[in-house]
């Protein structure tokens, strides 16, 4: 401070501060207008009359079967409507999450985007008025009749972005996904156990596997999310689907309720009894199916997104089932949902063409394409059946779950920060560093903080 340099630095700081204050006069992100609501009468379904249109679509269908599916559908749409050119921008899931925020808040967003379900994505986009309500289009195309309510609920949110499961529909999904139980048929035969029909039989099978020196469950939890999914599958059996749905959608209940704590206790017991691999928190999620395919794990609780990979590695040695219900023959319950929904952006200049495109790629014929390209279509395909054994298992499980309305939402929809706020304590739980009570209290704390906001 004793030299002129010091004074100059001070002056500079003052100038910067003043500039910052001047800038502070207006809030960031201002000027976003809500889109005008459309009436069903003004919707044009005749794409051929729309003239030459370039439809920009941002999707994340970059993996093998999904890529082939969307490429095939896009080609078919353009053949049907030669006046439309689809400008497809494909990004990986994580890349899309990062860039979509910036693209939507910019002046020239794409027409159709895959916006992830949940508060941190679709909820915030709707709140900011960046997605178009599909309600008028639904009245024209009848989408809510095409899809079961549980599935359209996942893609619906209130205008304030606060309540998933109510409010207008904002997107439609192509493929279904469920978390279920994969099993290694050879290993089951080795330990002399039949595929379990009830939850008790499943736990019994885990115990038998352990006593025979096998790894009962393949489990990698480096990313925290796998732990939440494992907990969710157990919770579905102990708490029941309606209570889980109410809890996730903020309609009642607490994470510290008895059955929810018991589910956490079950996880802790499994970890203590050695049903989960010792270094679970150090194993990458992507490595779990690799370990399972190598025979390290009689069972693996995982999503249908692993099926294609597991089929490649294990062929007919791998089977899949919905988590067995507590009573034999009861309808199964598990966590699941649908792939990222296709939504129309509020600033799209061709919303009618975009709606026709979404209608086209979710049509019954499109579900056949989904099967042909090795995916699990969100709706029952009219003619096609999967060829691979594990895909047949999955289609059967999905069908049973759809008929019995047994699909519960992913738990990380509960709050935008749930992945860390609950996933972290669950990592501590399987490492034996915390108790079931304390883990659920941590979840409840994050939950109430979010609901209070």
């Amino acid at each position, binding site marked *: 401070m004793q030299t002129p340099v010091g004074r100059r630095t001070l002056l500079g700081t003052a100038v910067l501060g003043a500039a910052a204050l001047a*800038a502070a006069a207006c809030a*960031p*992100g201002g000027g976003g207008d809500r889109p005008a609501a459309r009436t069903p009468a003004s919707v044009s379904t005749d794409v051929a009359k729309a003239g030459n249109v370039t439809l920009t679509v941002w999707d994340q269908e970059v993996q093998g079967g999904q890529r082939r599916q969307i490429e095939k559908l896009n080609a078919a749409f353009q053949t049907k409507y030669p006046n439309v050119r689809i400008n497809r921008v494909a990004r990986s899931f994580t890349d899309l999450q990062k860039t979509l925020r910036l693209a*939507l808040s910019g002046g020239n967003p794409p027409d159709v985007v895959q916006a992830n379900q949940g508060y941190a994505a679709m909820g915030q986009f709707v709140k900011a008025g960046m997605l178009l309500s599909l309600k008028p289009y639904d009245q024209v195309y009848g989408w809510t009749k095409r899809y079961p309510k549980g599935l359209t609920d996942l893609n619906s949110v209130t205008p304030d972005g606060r309540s998933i499961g109510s409010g207008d529909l904002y997107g439609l999904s192509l493929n279904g996904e469920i978390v279920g139980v994969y099993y290694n048929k050879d290993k089951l035969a080795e330990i002399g156990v039949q595929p379990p029909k009830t939850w008790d039989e499943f736990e019994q099978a885990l115990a038998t596997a352990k006593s025979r020196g096998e790894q009962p469950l393949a489990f990698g939890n480096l990313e925290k999310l796998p732990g939440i999914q494992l907990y969710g599958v157990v919770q579905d059996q102990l708490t029941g689907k309606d209570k889980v749905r109410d809890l996730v959608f903020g309609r009642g209940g607490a994470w510290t309720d008895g059955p929810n704590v018991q589910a956490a206790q079950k996880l802790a017991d499994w970890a203590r009894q050695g049903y989960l691999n010792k270094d679970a928190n*150090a194993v990458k999620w992507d490595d779990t199916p690799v370990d399972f395919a190598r025979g390290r794990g009689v069972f693996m609780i995982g999503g249908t997104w692993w099926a294609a990979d597991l089929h490649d590695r294990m062929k007919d040695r791998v089977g899949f089932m919905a988590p067995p219900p507590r009573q034999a023959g009861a309808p199964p319950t598990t966590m699941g949902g649908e792939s990222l929904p296709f939504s129309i952006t509020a600033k799209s200049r061709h919303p009618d063409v975009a709606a026709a495109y979404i209608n086209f790629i979710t049509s019954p014929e499109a579900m056949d394409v989904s099967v042909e390209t090795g995916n699990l279509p969100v709706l029952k395909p009219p003619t096609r059946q999967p060829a691979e054994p594990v895909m047949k298992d999955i289609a059967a499980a999905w069908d049973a779950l759809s008929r019995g309305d047994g699909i519960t939402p992913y738990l990380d929809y509960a709050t935008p920060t749930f992945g860390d706020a609950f996933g972290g304590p669950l*990592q501590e739980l399987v*490492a034996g560093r915390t108790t079931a009570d304390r883990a659920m209290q941590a979840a409840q704390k994050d939950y109430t903080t979010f609901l209070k906001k």
Partner: protein
Amino acid sequence: MTPPRGKGRPPGAPRNIGWLYVLPALLVYAAFLVWPVIRGVWFSLYEWDGLGTGTWAGLSNYARVATDASLRGAFGHALVLVVFYAVIPCLLAFVLVAAVSRTRVRGLAFFRTVLFLPQVIAMVAVAVAWQWMYSPDGPVNGFLRLLHTLGLPDWSRGWLGDFDLALPAVGLVGTWVEVGLAMVLFLAGVQKIPRELYEAARIDGAGPVAEFRAVTLPGLRRELGVALTLTSVAALRNFDLVYVTTKGGPGEATKVPAYEVYHRTFETGEVGLACAIGVTLAALVFALTAGISRLAEGRRGAA
């Protein structure tokens, strides 16, 4: 010594036209550095999800940085990493350089290259490699199991999933990367220390330790300042290593501020808070580097 500031300019003093010469660089600097900093500070005063209209939040985001246990933990982890990235590498480099300066090492160029190599590799590649090294079935555990068969206790574990050891494990990767940088800097410094000083020290009967303290260390003060600054900044801005290896886990054991900036901006939509973390981190980097340079210069003044 400040030059007299009169109307007449002393010969050789800069003229105003100088500003014109630096204008292009200044413009680039202002557009890509100064303006983003101002915007960052501005955003940090709002509660904003990055999409809608932000609401004025005053200093509450900074209050959260100071009070939120998880965020404070992240800054604490960053300081632990400074030890692994800056302090340990510099100490190791000193030992190496002291050894080299006393004896003639065959193939010095080879060792220098090998130790410097981690600096040349992209951090993401380093992270992927070390994730494999530390994995439950990786080489580190393989070696430890080998020791176990020789009768030692079984030290193998999932390093990156261990609540107590994940942060040191990540830190050791930093040590591995930065030791080469410190050593190359010090080696360059040692070469300019006059040989006579070492001879004089030896004639005076100095042992290796005394020689190091009296000759090598004072001669390397500037290099030490540079090495500490570069490595501390690398420690504080550490993002890629954590992003690839642990994503801040297990639990919150390896959360660091730079990762939180990313996480809060893109994953939870707390842009205002993320900016406040970023500004705080920048202030911390500034304070630490200012402290280091003052330390390095201050000692020189005393010598």
